[in-house]
Every structure is written in C-alpha cells, then in structure tokens.
C-alpha cells in the first residue's frame, strides 16, 4: 500500500493511496501505522479520500492500530466515502473512531489534544 505522509504541527496526516483497503493490504497498513507511532507520531489522521471499499480485515487493521496508538495518542479518520462510512456504521465503528469531514478539521481537533503529545516534528513530506 502506498501511504503518503505529511506533518502538520504535531499531527501526522497519512493519505491512503489505494481505492480498496482489504486483506491484501491490511497487514502492511498495520505495520506502517505502528512504525509511524514508534517514530513518535502519536497523533495520526488517516485520510480516506481515495478509498472506496474496506473489508473486515482492513477494518481489523484500523482497530488494531487504534488500540496501539490510543495508549499514548489518538487516531482520527477523515474524508470517508459512502461505502466506507456505511461499513463504519454497520459495524458500530462510527461510535469508536473520531470521524471528520476533511483533514483540516481532523488536524485542528487533534492539535487541541496537546496534553497527549509533546511538540510535533516538522519533517518534510515523504512517501
């Protein structure tokens, strides 16, 4: 899975560059989010703009990552397309994840959680 990462203040914004998050990509996503967390990026926004479909394994990877990050930080998701939003609702994950209309709103909300993270990095965008 291609994942474009950029940092806005103390928040890592991760753009999923795939239109389907399924069992084929789930383990990769999970390990990439864990690596991001281990690198100190404890406030993460996952941008689903490109994602049109998520299966149960993709959802499981998101849940697993949420468990990891929420010990010391936060994950928010944004720009959910119709089918992905429907899956979150069907599985009640819309009550678990912080969901925002766009990355700007998500970043603003997480930046308010300054108590959970020290000053963020200003790394250059990378793939």
């Amino acid at each position, binding site marked *: 899975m291609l994942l474009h990462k950029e940092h806005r203040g103390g928040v890592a914004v991760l753009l999923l560059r795939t239109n389907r998050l*399924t069992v*084929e990509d789930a383990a990769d996503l999970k390990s990439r989010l864990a690596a991001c967390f281990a690198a100190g990026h404890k406030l993460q926004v996952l941008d689903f703009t490109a994602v049109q479909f998520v299966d149960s394994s993709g959802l499981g990877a998101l849940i697993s990552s949420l468990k990891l990050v929420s010990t010391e930080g936060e994950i928010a998701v944004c720009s959910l397309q119709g089918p992905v939003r429907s899956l979150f609702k069907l599985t009640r994950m819309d009550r678990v994840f912080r969901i925002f209309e766009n990355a700007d709103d998500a970043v603003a909300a997480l930046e308010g959680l300054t108590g959970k993270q020290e000053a963020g990095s200003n790394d250059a965008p990378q793939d």
Partner: protein
Amino acid sequence: MTRLKIDIESKLNAVSQLGMTVHSACEAFGLPEEMRFRIQTAVVEAASNAVRHAYDHAPDQAVTFTMEIHEGRVELEVIDSGKPMPPQQAEVLRHGSNVLDFDETDIEALPEGGLGLEIIHRSMDNVNYTSNNGINRIHMMTTAREEEETART
C-alpha cells in the same frame, strides 16, 4: 429475473475484482447505492473466506458466485469445494454473534477478528450455509431496506 454467474480463481486479487464487478453489475441493474454496498461487502467477505479458509490459499481452485435479481429481492450464492466451515461459524452466518456488541469506550476490548461473518450476517436479510458432497454454499438474500428506497426516490 436476471441471473449473473462468475467463476474466479482462489486468489485474493480475484476476490477484489469480483467485488468491483458485482458492484458495477448492481449499479447497472439500478439497485440503490446502500444496497450495492451491502451486496459487495457480503460477496467479498464470503469469497475471501473461501480463499483463505476453505482453500487455505491453495491456488487454482474455483470459487463460483451467482446473483439472481428478482422483483423485490436479490439472491446471492458463493460456492467452493474446499474445507467446510466449522459449525459454530456457520451459526454466526445464520444467526449472528455478539462480536459487535462492544462497549465503544473500552478500546482495548474492541474486536480485531471474527468480523467478516458478522458483517455478512448484518449486510443481508437472510443467510444460510450448507456443505453437501464436498460443495460448500453460502446462500444470501436481501431486499432494499426502507431508508435505501427513500434515498432512491
């Protein structure tokens, strides 16, 4: 009645292609958007289950999908000839489970696995599983739900 039949190889990328094809077919048949999502979701989960569990990722095995569009309902089947599903999992398909009855404030206790069968159950109006003479069959039926019909009008 309109009938569609697709045979795929026992590969995960073939499952993704099946999902996209089924979604496009549902769109061409004029089914509501939410219903298209539910059908694609159930079919992908059932076919993925066949590849990963019935065939244990063995290549060159067949997964057959059929869809029948009747007046007011859609009937779906996913068929494989691999290892039968354990009876307790077949019961989850038919009757559901409590895997999604979680406390949303207890992050540590959220389920990470066992979601696929429950998603199939919740996506469809009726689900049955049979295994006879080496042929495993997930039969699913759904109708347009009230909010989906409302969204279409």
